[in-house]
């Protein structure tokens, strides 16, 4: 896998976008501009960008409650995302979904999900549909170490394996599920070990190493496109922020978290890689960060200026052939 400098810089840009978007989201949540609750994936950008950069825009992705990164890496529009988080009419879901339900079906993003592991059964359908329609698309489901303990994961992995569906199971083992450490909730340390029970390749990856993730994902994508079936990829990473914004994080120390910052940070690691190998100069990277910052700023202005939906819009989008929400009409 040899990537040219331009491609690598684009990967960096994508990671920066995720990072800056989420920093912005955290700030706006704290300010109260973003209602509800949000979950940030800061520190996990190598996983979302590493995997999604191997995908075409007609490939499918399902994401999770911690889905901003997957969305952005798959190409989502920052304005529509920001507006959605703000609950605005111009958001991806017209303000109906919020952070936990963003989707962009035009980009194959079949939705974030408020139900842990909720995306897996959906990906089974996407994979099956690809097979029926005989295209060479692939379907990726992101999920967490916590999610891996839910029943539907098992059902979908078995089904994908027996039918050789073009699915990539991308588990982000960030070592925590809310307050629960992975080692307490999972009976194996490396979730990729479970793949053997489905006759499926299982790969463990340093999930903060962008190129390592990308390499594993490329192989899995190729396998899927060739009709050879599913792959299970475990991206080992770490959740830097609390489970949700506002999480007091009594379950771990500051020192625990710090180990994953700085030189273990996926963005730092990737920029170091590029600088060391003279793929880019600090100035190139800085320029990218500034460009992205401007883009995010624009997105925020867009969101701020956008109107809230009108109340009566709540009664739209329930059915295609509307039955006007009520039963008696």
């Amino acid at each position: 896998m040899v990537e040219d400098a331009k491609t690598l810089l684009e990967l960096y840009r994508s990671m920066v976008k995720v990072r800056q978007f989420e920093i912005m989201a955290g700030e706006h949540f704290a300010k109260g501009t973003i209602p509800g609750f949000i979950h940030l994936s800061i520190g996990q950008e190598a996983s979302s960008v590493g995997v999604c950069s191997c995908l075409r825009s007609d490939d499918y992705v399902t994401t999770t409650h911690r889905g901003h990164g997957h969305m952005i890496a798959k190409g989502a529009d920052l304005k529509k995302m920001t507006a959605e988080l703000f609950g605005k009419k111009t958001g991806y879901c017209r303000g109906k979904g919020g952070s936990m339900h963003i989707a962009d079906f035009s980009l194959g993003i079949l939705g974030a999900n408020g139900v842990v592991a909720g995306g897996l059964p959906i990906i089974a359908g996407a994979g099956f549909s690809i097979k029926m329609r005989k295209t060479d698309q692939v379907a990726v489901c992101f999920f967490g170490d916590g999610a891996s303990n839910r029943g539907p994961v098992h059902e979908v992995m078995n089904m994908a394996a027996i039918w050789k569906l073009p699915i990539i199971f991308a588990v982000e083992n960030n070592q925590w599920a809310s307050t629960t450490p992975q080692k307490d909730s999972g009976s194996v340390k490396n979730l990729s070990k479970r793949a053997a029970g489905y006759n499926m390749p299982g790969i463990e990856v340093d999930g903060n190493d962008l190129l390592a993730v990308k390499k594993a994902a490329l192989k899995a994508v190729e396998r899927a496109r060739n009709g050879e079936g599913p792959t299970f990829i475990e991206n080992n990473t770490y959740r830097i922020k609390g489970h949700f914004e506002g999480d007091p994080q009594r379950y771990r120390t500051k020192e625990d978290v710090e180990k994953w910052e700085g030189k273990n940070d996926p963005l730092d690691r990737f920029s170091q890689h590029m600088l060391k190998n003279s793929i880019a100069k600090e100035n190139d990277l800085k320029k990218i960060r500034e460009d992205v910052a401007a883009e995010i700023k624009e997105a925020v202005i867009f969101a701020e200026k956008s109107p809230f939906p009108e109340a009566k819009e709540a009664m739209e989008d329930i059915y295609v052939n509307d039955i006007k929400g009520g039963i008696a009409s």
Partner: protein
Amino acid sequence: MNERIISASEALAEALNEEMTKDENVFIIGEDIRVHEGIFAQFKGLPTQFPDRIIDAPISEAAITGVGLGGALTGMRPIVDMHFSDFVTCCMDELCNQAAKIRYMSGGQVKVPMVLWCPDGGGLRAAAQHSQSLEAWFIHTPGLKVVVPSEPSDVKGLIKSAIRDDDPVMFFQHKLLFSKEGHVPEKPYLIPLGKASVKRQGKDVTLLCYGSAYYMCKEAADELHNQNIDAEIVDLRTLKPLDMETIAKSIRKTRNVVIVHEACLTGGFGAELTAIIQDELFDYLDAPVKRVAAKDVPMPFSPVLEDFCLPDASDVVKAVKSIKSS
């Protein structure tokens, strides 16, 4: 006139055949459907006709429903065979949190043209986990449509509309009705969702029913006729959307209502219907709306017990007489 008589199973198979011929995106997924061609022979001929579109899946209801939903989101028109409606308990998240809500949550970005096909109901001595009628759960789940046909001709016209509908449709068919025979036109036809059918005209009382309860009402109406009570039977056919117009028209005429369904009484669809009727037609009612339904128990196995718990025509007659003799 060519009045062809076939069974509900045959009507269903014919409808599925027509729709699968018309649209290659329609497929059926379920457990153990290929070899038996459906345990009620309701898929007869389909595995031969469409070898790649009748799919036997592992026992994985969540994943199977996911195939329906994910398929619908990506260009297919899946029909998910739930085997027995009781097993919806194994995929409620996929149905109620995902399929029902994804269109709305995404702000209308997407359609979910999927049918969840559920044989339901009791009378087979199949006990508590194989005899339920669970339509009320789904009535209370915005985003789903609910269809419960009775006669073979309804089955045919409604399943075709359900397949063509762009929203997720729960389609309940009573296990004992598959072998029932009736007139089914040979030419393809659709029955729109949301249209009730007045199956017997009457002036004294309106019997509102669907699914297996239609046959109870039919029998009851004959008996009532002998007793000089003239019952009108409205077969709702679709519960959501509901044809309130037809219902209201009948009630304004008869001023008396008995609702009949096989699901257990408490919290059943009859409750909702009653609530709407007493609200919208308060001044037209000469008597309270009466409900006939199964007893509020898990369905017991022994024939004596099950027969006691299920409603039948005599219960309908009794309910009518409780309001028409007062």
